[in-house]
Structure formats: C-alpha cells, structure tokens
C-alpha cells in the first residue's frame, strides 16, 4: 500500500505541473485584466500596479517566477484583496468548505447508499418507485431551488432553523442538507443499478442456496461487490464537495471557498484562480488515491498490482 501511495505522489507532480501551466496560459488568454474597471486608471497608475505584481515582465519570465513561487508553496497574492495572499485566503476559506463538504458527503453516503440498496432489493415495489422518484427529483431540481425551499419551510414557515449565516452548529444543518441533496440522489441511483447487477450473479444464487439469510447475503456479498462503482465516484465527489459549492455558499452566506471558483475568474484575479484550481487538483488526486486504497480493501484481487 505504501508503494501505491509513493507511486501516486510521483505521478502527481507532472499532473500538477500541467494543471498549473494550463491555468497560467488560460487566465492570460481571456480578454480583460485584473485592473480593468468601469473607471480606467491613469496609465501611470496601471504601470505602478503592474510593476508591483510583476505583470509588466515578459510572460515567460512571469511563468518562471510563478513556478518558483509554487515550489516554495507560495500561491501568490490576490490583486483584488490587496492585503491578503492566496495562501491566507484559502487558509481561511478551505476549512469552512471542508467542514460543510464532509458533512454533506457523510449525509449523502448515509442516506444514498441504503436508499439505493433498498430500492434494488425491493425492486418494482412502491418503495422502489418512491426512492427512485425522490432521487430523480434530487438530481433534476437545481440546488438553489432546493435551498430556497428549505429556507422557506424550516427558516420562515416553521422557524426551527436559521435562514442563513455561519454562527452555531444549527446554522450548518440547512446548507449541509442542501449540499447533500444532489449527491444523495446520484449515489442512490448508482447503488441501485449496481446492486441489481450483482444480484443476478451466480455466486449470489449460490450463497442463497447454501442457506445464507437474505440480509447476510445482501450486506456481506452483494453490497461489498456492488460498492466498487460507488466508491469510484466518491473520489471526485469528495473533492468537489470539500472545495465548496458556489450556490450553497452564496445563498446561505457561508465564508467558504466555493465562491472563488466563480468570483476570482470574474475579477481576473490570476493567482487566486490558479490557487483554487491547484488546490482542487491536489484534492482530486488525493481522494482518488483514497479510492484506490479502498478498492484493495473491498476486493483483494486488486491488490496484485500493489
């Protein structure tokens, strides 16, 4: 397993380099710069600002400077939030998103997997239709609608939960549920399909004929095998959830990092765009590595490769 971790870290380096370079090029290709505004600044002032951030240098030199800084773990400075570095901004915002994202992910797994498994086992019954109807709705209804609906019902109508803000644990309930809605539905559908497929397998029939109880077969033999595709999607899903959702953070006024994926691009805040993208890439690589490790636990055949 250590070999796997080591291998993954080695391959991650070129991947990150490519991501960093691509982002570097892309942000500069888009028209408009960080200092464009309704009021154009005098050219003297633009020159001073560009000099301050080294944007007056040739692009090749900026690229080298950028890579040098990256190697030191310095993601650069924000042009918009002038007194803060990208490291500062992400250090403030990521823990919030991470907390909310993990909560959302846990909710999605705890609700989605049993829901899907139940639907598969009770295939064709009212229970199956109900759970599949709910999950189709969960996938198709956009987050902002679900968020607004939850705020209306629990915040305004029943007055049991806060409408928005990020103060007490109670404030986390509605955003976490909103965040978990889509992934729950997705996981439920995936689990159902996968369990159905596994149920057809010969060895399941064998287990049954040998006298194993229905429940034991499902949990020990079917679920364990059926979970492989579910675990596969959990990697990217986790990376997406812990880096925050723009919509959820926006409607509940949560100080997470999801908003930067959108606002940093709108502001042409180059280093912040690159910082958020890189952090996302790192998390994606990390969660995929966790997925590979989980595979080995679920299915010993996958251990061969090491």
């Amino acid at each position, binding site marked *: 397993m250590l070999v796997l971790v080591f291998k993954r870290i080695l391959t991650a380096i070129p991947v990150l380099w490519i991501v960093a370079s691509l982002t570097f090029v892309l942000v500069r290709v*888009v*028209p*408009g*710069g960080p*200092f*464009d*505004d*309704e*009021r*154009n*600044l*005098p*050219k*003297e*002032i633009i*020159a*001073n*600002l560009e*000099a*301050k951030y080294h944007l007056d240098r040739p692009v090749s030199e900026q690229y080298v400077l950028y890579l040098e800084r990256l190697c030191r773990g310095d993601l650069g400075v924000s042009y*918009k*939030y*002038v*007194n*803060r*570095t990208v490291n500062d*901004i992400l250090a*403030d*915002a990521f823990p919030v998103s991470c907390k909310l994202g993990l909560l959302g992910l846990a909710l999605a797994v705890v609700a989605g997997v049993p829901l899907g498994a139940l639907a598969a086992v009770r295939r064709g019954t009212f229970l199956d239709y109900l759970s599949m109807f709910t999950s189709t709705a969960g996938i198709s209804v956009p987050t902002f609608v679900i968020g*607004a609906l939850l*705020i209306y019902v629990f*915040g*305004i109508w029943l007055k049991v939960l806060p*409408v*928005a*803000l*990020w103060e007490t644990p109670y404030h986390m309930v509605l955003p976490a549920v909103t965040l978990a809605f889509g992934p729950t539905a997705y996981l439920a559908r995936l689990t159902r399909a996968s369990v159905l497929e596994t149920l057809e397998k010969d060895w399941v029939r064998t287990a049954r004929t040998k006298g194993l109880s229905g429940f034991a077969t499902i949990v020990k033999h079917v679920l364990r095998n059926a979970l492989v595709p579910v675990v596969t999607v959990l990697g990217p899903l986790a990376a997406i959830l812990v880096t925050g959702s723009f919509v959820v953070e*926006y*409607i*509940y*006024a*949560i*100080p*997470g990092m999801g*908003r930067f994926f959108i606002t940093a691009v*709108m*502001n*042409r805040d180059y280093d912040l765009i690159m910082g958020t993208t890189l952090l996302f890439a790192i998390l994606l690589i990390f969660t995929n590595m966790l997925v590979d490790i989980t595979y080995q636990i679920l299915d010993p055949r996958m251990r061969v490769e090491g």
Partner: protein
Amino acid sequence: MNLGNEPPSLDWHATTDSTSFDVIANIMVGLTSYGDDLAIEPCLASSWDILDGGSRYVFHLRDDIYWSDGKPVTAFDFQDSWRRLVDPATGASYAYMLYDVENGLKINNGEIGDPSMLGAHALDERTFEVRLAKPVAYFLSLTAVAPTFPVRRDVIEKHGDRWTEPENIVTNGPFLLDAWQHEYKIELKANPRFFSGAPELSRVKMFMVPEQSTAFLLYENNELDYVDNRSFSTSDVERYARSPEYRNFPLLRCSYIAFNVQKAPFTDARVRRAFAMAIDKTVFPRILRRRERPLTSWIPEGLTGYAPDSGPPFDPAAAGRLLDQAGFKDRSKFPRVELLYPNREDAKLVVESVQAQLKANLGVSIELTNQEWKVYLARRKKDPTPLFRGAWGADYPDPETFMNLFTSVNGNNHTRWHNKLYDSLVSRAAGEQDEKRRAELYRRADRLLCRQEAPLIPAYLATQNVMVKPWAGGITFNALDVQYFRNAYVRAPGAKGGAN
C-alpha cells in the same frame, strides 16, 4: 447591516471599492468631512486658510484628536499619508486625487524619485500646508474622502500587508475595527476616545451576505436592522415602497449611452443629436423600477452648474428631420450599428429600451452586443463599438468629476470625441474660485456636450433604496453612497445596544 461582499482591502490607499469605503468611513476621519447636503465641514482640521489665489491651503488641526492607540493625530501623519498615496511603490489607484498637488503627478509617474518633494508638508504638529500646481476649486472636497485620510507610518512599517487586520490597525474614527472574519463579518465597536464623543451604538455588525434575497430574509427575520440596494431586489422595492421603513434617494451615479464618434455614421453630429432627441428618458425609471431619476444633462442635480435643459428635449419629429438632413431619408440605408453592454440585468433593460425607442421613434434598427463585464471593459477601451453603454460615479461631490470625463485627455473618454472649446471651458471652471462664474462655465460646457455635440446621451441617475427597522435610526446616507453610523441608534424593543 449587510455589506454584500468582502471589502477588498481596508487600506484607504489601496482600495477603490465602495464596500471598503463603507467600513473605512466609519473607522477613520480626515481633515474635513461631508455634511448632510455634502457641504464641507471641519473635522480633524478645525479651520483652514486659502492663500495665494487658491493655490495654497493651510490646515489647522484640533488639539484633542487621538489614534486608537492613544497617540495624538498630527500633521506629520497627513504628510506620511499623502506621500504614500503618490509613491509609485504603493500602487494606489486613487493617487490621481493628488495630481493637482505640486509634483504629485511627477512623483507618481516616476519622474521625481523622492516622495518628500510632494507639495504637502507638516509645518509643525498642528499645521499642514498644501501647495497646488494650479488653483483647484474642488480641492477641499478631496480632503473629505478616504484616500487623503492620515496614516500611521510606523504601524504600516511594522506589520506590512497585515496592518489592516483588527489586531494591528490603528485608526482615529468614531468606531474601531474589532473583528474581521474574512468573507463573512466585520464587527466595529464604539471608540470612547473619539473627539466629538463616543457614538451611541456600542457595536456595529457588518455581514457579507452576497445573495440579495437571503439578506432581505434576514432583515425580515429581524436579524439585520438595516439593508440597502445590495440586499434589495426590485420586486422587494415594489413590495415595500409604501412601508414607513423604506427610503429612496438619488446617488451621484450617472448612466449613459455613448457614441464612438470616429465610427460612421456617428462622425456626423446631426446623427448623434437625432439619437439623443429620439430617446425618452422617463422610460428608464419605469423599466428599472428603483425610482431612478431621468437624466437630461450630464451634470446631475445638486451639483454646481446643474441645468435640466442642458440636454436636448425629447422630440422624435425634430430627430427624424435631423436624420433626414444627415442623408438618411431612406432609413433602410442606415447601417446596422452595434450597441455594446455588459451582462447586467439593469444594463440589459436599458439597452433593450433604447433599441425599441430608436426603432419606434426614428425607424432605425440597432444591434445589441452583450459581453461579460471584463470583456466589455477591455473592448470599450481598445476598440469601442459605434454605440456603448457606460456609467460614472462621483468620487467627490463636484461637477469636475463628471465633466472631466469627456475632456480629450481623460483616459475614460471612450467616445474619442475631442473638443478644444469643451476642454478649455472645463479647465477654466476647475480653477475658477468664483462660484457663480464657475457654474456658468460648467453650464456652457454641459450644453455644448449634451445638446450641440452629443457624443453621449445621459440616461438616468441611479438611486439608493434602504430599509431601516422602526427601532433603529440616525444612519446618515449621502449621494456619494457612503453610510455613516456615527449618530445611529437602536431603541427598544430590540434594544441590544448594537446594530446588525
């Protein structure tokens, strides 16, 4: 209250953002301050002398003014601040506010390497002298805006970029920065040492709720005591327009439609005038529905030189005749010109109305081009389309901030319209000390701009819409869109001794 977004910075030299100024205006004060009607009032300076025909100002500071760490505010703090503002190393966007001060421009563009050559000196602890390159009538207005507030050089040197964090910052205003949870909340607390007495509110909480409807729900749920445009959708404005909690007032922020006068057919002033006369400005408030004020002159109401008839009247018949004279009797020969606008809902409504009005009143079809904000800005700067939408907000309450925009030298004049007479009228008005003569000069320039030459069509004045809970009050607003909590109060039943 709700700030809407994170203030990009609380360094009053580094920021240009109104969100930042909403905070800074409550934790800092300068030489002068604005009264309710934007008249200049003494603040840290108890008096001043205007000498040498308006090119030298001597400010006399009060002797009971202190920084939050207990040190007195001195003229040297102003000297440090103004030098830092023009120093190219600071990279301050508002450095141009001091371009009229002796050597201001030259220091900022690097021609003079030593910021201490700036014509702004502390003569002693209580006396601050400013020498201007030429007399500037609006100079005092600049001493009431945040970029010219004093700074503590020692604090900035000690903490570097982190000097604006609550544990480091040293300020002199009615409130102190108590806590700053980035992207979420700023808390201010009353400054017991403030020279005119501590404010009544012991605490102000400024949240950063980006989503309008969420912020408005918080207001309806009594979690916010005060909200403004940032928290207020148009449908909510209509729903609450009759409520005693609602208030609306115009801002010094003008929207306009402009021509690129170097592109046919707008090289001909008659075509531009025809367009200007074919658009009924009273339509804009009806479609935008935030009680905007139709704008018929470029200088808005409340400023020196304002005259509602500076622009041409709405007269489709006369507009049609002008277009005939310009050679477009056969309207199908009129080229399909492009009108560029950014992807904002209000801009979209306005340009669609302009398109429809031109079709109905002149028989002319134009095309609308929508671009993402920064792409729109880049395009307008590099190669403006024949028609484009623009807006301008005042930095300080003086016609200069609007009229200078269309001079030949102004980098924000994207119309490419250059007129020597206009330039000279505006430049003479800027230096004119006699208020009556100054108003007359601006009126002439405004008439030349809007009626005769028409490189732009003034459209409307934006408004601020606010809601204040019945138990709160005393918040001062001004047309520059700055909000002061100095005299604000919160009374029972929600008496928490603080305001959200």
